[in-house]
């Protein structure tokens, strides 16, 4: 979708003027994408719903700060992520430096990724096993496309911490996926 799409710009302008119909239109257009983002950064569906509701209120309240030179979808996504992070900030702060010893992926494990063929549900299952700190940095960087500088600002951590967390998260996830491949889980899926 073009950033300067006239229809979208008119919709945003109408939302800025507080038009309820335009707000509903924007909500319906982006709520499914944003709910997926919210689910990714929360531990339960109920929390994801709470985060999404708070995020939408923030979106419409601060719509005047949105610059049309940026991606509207990226702006929305960032607000949802920030809301989720704020929601779990205390929990996340204690998690960034934990479980380092649990990372033990080996080159042998990486051999299992020659033929990457995982469903999204399997990836969800594997990513959910990441420690909260690792998982958050990994999802922000790999899935949602934020840069380390942005991640550092959002999580209030150092950029180098973000980079090291990402590296460890990758190894951890590959370890988990390798073990999933070695177990009967993957063959079962193919048989199914």
């Amino acid at each position, binding site marked *: 979708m073009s950033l300067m799409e006239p229809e979208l710009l008119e919709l945003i302008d109408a939302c800025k003027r507080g038009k309820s119909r335009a707000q509903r239109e924007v*909500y*319906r257009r982006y709520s499914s994408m944003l*709910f*997926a983002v919210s689910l990714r950064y929360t531990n339960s569906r109920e929390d994801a719903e709470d985060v999404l509701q708070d995020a939408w209120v923030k979106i419409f*309240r601060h719509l005047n700060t949105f610059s049309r030179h940026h991606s509207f979808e990226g702006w929305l996504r960032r607000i949802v992520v920030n809301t989720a992070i704020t929601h779990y900030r205390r929990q996340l702060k204690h998690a960034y430096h934990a479980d380092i010893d649990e990372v033990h992926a080996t080159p042998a494990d990486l051999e299992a990724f020659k033929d990457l063929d995982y469903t*999204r549900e399997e990836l969800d299952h594997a990513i959910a096993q990441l420690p909260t700190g690792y998982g958050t940095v990994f999802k922000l*960087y790999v899935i949602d496309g934020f840069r380390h500088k942005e991640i550092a600002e959002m999580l209030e951590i150092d950029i180098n911490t973000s980079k090291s967390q990402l590296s460890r998260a990758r190894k951890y996830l590959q370890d988990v996926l390798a073990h999933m491949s070695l177990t009967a889980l993957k063959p079962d899926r193919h048989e199914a």
Partner: protein
Amino acid sequence: MKLDAFDQYIHDQYQGYEVTPPAALEDAVMGKLRRMKWARRVRVGAGVLAVLAGGGFWWGATTAESVADPVAPAAAPVVRVADPVDPAQPVDPAQPMAAEQTTPEVRTAVEEAVAATLTEAPEVSPERPAAMAPLDSRIEPAPLAESGQPEKSLQKDRGGSELWIISAEVEVKDR
């Protein structure tokens, strides 16, 4: 397998991934926005009322201070002049003056002025004034109107003679 490719693979798996939120969430969001909008309006209205009330209070306080200010010079007594007398109406000298004209201050001022006048009045000379000049010398014949056509009218006809009355103006000089 490079890690960048691994990242890309994960990223692609989640590209376009959407989950429909519960329908009730839309109403909850819109309801919250609506309540916030009304709350903002109420706040703005309350602010306007507060400003108006404050302005009214300030105005009232300022007005009260100006009335009760002891330092302020006393205003001169206002003497209202009675309505002009209608010449067609008979004047009853026995009728008292209007209340506005008989205020104690005015009455006192008038009495003092009258008393001063009576006290300071020069004595009248007992000598009689000089006799005045005869009336004829004090009357100058008035010139006829310069129009050349003085207004005239025929009043009577006495025995065939006509009596014309011509209007004239006479100026009397008081020497």
